[in-house]
């Protein structure tokens, strides 16, 4: 049903820190998003999930690997990037900061349209005001005219987020990347914004990549989910499978500490995600892995592999459930080394 639209193929992104060390924010990620589906990219801070989003939009250049749009690798010239951005848009985190405080809502929404000359090319011959109003209405701001002359500080958090979404929709994109779309919003209005994303998928056929740390959000709206740890995807697959039958110890631990999950005993990991300048050898999760700590990895004879043998990058297979874990690979009855559970 969905074709591959935007892909990351074995993408690595490096930064040089102040101390001169090389930090691998992404260490080989395969990810794809197609039209008409919602993919959740889940991870904690330091996992690299925001970097994936920015690299897929061309804001960062990969040190290795490539980003592919409609089968063609990205061309980083200004003109081609601009064409890409008409079709793939992003809604940034922090709605308060993402809107220029000196621009009215109308100007913020119209900005992208003017850059791409959308009004001139409109097949229905609508003028700019009508297009802005249409975009704002699609984002749930009704009546749009009421808000045209407002400034960002006069809006509520939810309205600001909708303005950002409207600004992205005004370009008529096929794919939307939403970075933590509801984390800074009040709890009671989160559902509205999430429902909006679902509506855009259903009515406009948009593909959406949602970057978030919230597993509940993924359960709410995502078709597929990819869990990231320290620059790699460690588990990926259909949401129901990954969240109800997680195979990777990290995913299992994450799920177990989500409040009010009664089925799982909480596994609180010690410490925090390590520095991306010092990625552990072997499986990058092994220093904190509960299976290593409680001996089950040793019992099954894979502990040595966990410490020394690096795992392969998970393929972007949209239908399968893939895990990057030596223990899971051992315990699965089918599948190659990467532990694919088909």
């Amino acid at each position, binding site marked *: 049903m969905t074709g591959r639209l935007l892909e990351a193929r074995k993408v690595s992104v490096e930064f040089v820190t102040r101390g001169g060390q090389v930090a691998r924010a992404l260490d080989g990620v395969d990810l794809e998003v197609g039209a008409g589906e919602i993919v959740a990219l889940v991870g904690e801070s330091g996992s690299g999930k925001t970097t994936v989003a920015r690299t897929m*939009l061309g*804001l960062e250049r990969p040190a290795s690997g490539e980003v592919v749009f409609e089968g063609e690798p990205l061309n980083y010239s*200004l003109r081609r*990037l*601009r064409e890409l*951005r*008409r079709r793939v*848009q*992003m809604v*940034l*985190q*922090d709605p308060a*900061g*993402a*809107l*220029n*405080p*000196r621009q*009215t809502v*109308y*100007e913020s929404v*119209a*900005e*992208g349209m003017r*850059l*791409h000359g959308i009004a001139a090319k409109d097949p229905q011959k609508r003028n*700019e*005001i009508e297009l802005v*109003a249409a975009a704002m209405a699609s984002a749930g701001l*009704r*009546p749009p*005219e*009421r808000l*045209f*002359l407002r400034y960002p500080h006069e809006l509520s958090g939810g309205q600001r987020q909708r303005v*950002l979404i409207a*600004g992205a929709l005004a*370009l008529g994109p096929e794919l939307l990347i939403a970075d933590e779309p509801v984390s800074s919003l009040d709890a009671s209005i989160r559902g509205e914004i999430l429902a909006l994303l679902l509506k855009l998928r259903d009515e406009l056929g948009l593909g959406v990549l949602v970057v978030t740390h919230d597993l509940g959000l993924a359960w709410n709206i995502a078709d597929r989910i990819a869990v990231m740890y320290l620059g790699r995807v460690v588990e990926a697959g259909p949401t129901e499978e990954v969240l109800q039958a997680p195979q990777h110890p990290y995913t299992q631990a994450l799920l177990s500490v989500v409040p009010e999950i009664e089925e799982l005993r909480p596994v609180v990991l010690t410490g925090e995600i390590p520095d991306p300048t010092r990625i552990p050898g072997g499986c990058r999760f092994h220093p904190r892995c509960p299976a290593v700590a409680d001996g089950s990895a040793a019992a099954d004879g894979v502990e040595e592999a966990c410490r020394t043998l690096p795992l392969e990058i998970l393929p972007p297979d949209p239908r399968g459930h893939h895990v990057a874990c030596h223990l899971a690979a051992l315990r699965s009855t089918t599948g190659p080394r990467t532990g694919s559970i088909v």
Partner: protein
Amino acid sequence: MSAAEHEATDEHPVRLSARQLARRRRRESFMRGWRTFRRNRSGMLGLVVLGLFAFIALAAPLLASAEGLEVTKATGGVLEPPSSEYWLGTDDQGRSVLTLLIWGARISLFVGLAATVISMVIGTLVGLISGYSSGWSAAVLFRLTEWFLVIPFLPLAIVLATVLGRSLFNIALVIGVTSWPSTALLIRSQTLSIKERAYIERARVLGAGRWHQIRKHVLPNVMPMVFANTTLTVAIAILAETTLSFLGLGDPTRVSWGSMLEDAFQVGAITTGAWWFIVPPGVCVVLVVLAFTLVGQALEEVLNPRLKGR
């Protein structure tokens, strides 16, 4: 749809074009700023004083005949004290000091403003580019700014004035070229901080190139600081012009407050006690500079509400 339209016409008619909407909004925020400014008493005082001097400068031909400037047509005695005929006495050539003062206002203000324009244009451009770009062009501009900042103003001004020759425009140029660095530094640091804001990244995501980002996002957020800085720069420029003219570097064919002070000094007005020749131009310079400073401070309050009530 009609209900929404009706609702809309109460506040914001849909029929207005985008530009009219923007213009109306700008006018509203201008009025709000004006009201805030009005409440600042010292700022209003400064504005009144500036208005007075601006009027004097513009209406000079009406207030005092231009002939009063010509040495050959001077009718007064040498350094006569104030009298009913010459309210501020005469200079060493027999000209009315009042006439000189009035016409001098023109030159002093004009040169001050021209120099400020030059300084602000160079300073803002350099500040924006060195703040926004990364790479060697930014580094070069920054070093240039620092270099110019460190060079002492007076020696450089003297050298330039001597090389370029003595004319009004050259004086304005000299002052502009020596005073842009402080503006550039200010704009640069402001640009650096704005560059990191999320809405700049959003513009990039929408497909904006560098110039669009600078023009539509960085500049409007930097402009308030530019405005406040401008008024203070004018004050400094007028002082600079006065200094340079006093040192004999100004246009010899024009009368400015600085040249009056130079003449007074040359003819020993201090020792002869001809205070009417020295004090008025000095007082005028002080008043104008003070007025600009007060207005500048009030403007800062308007543009940065957090400073209010300090």
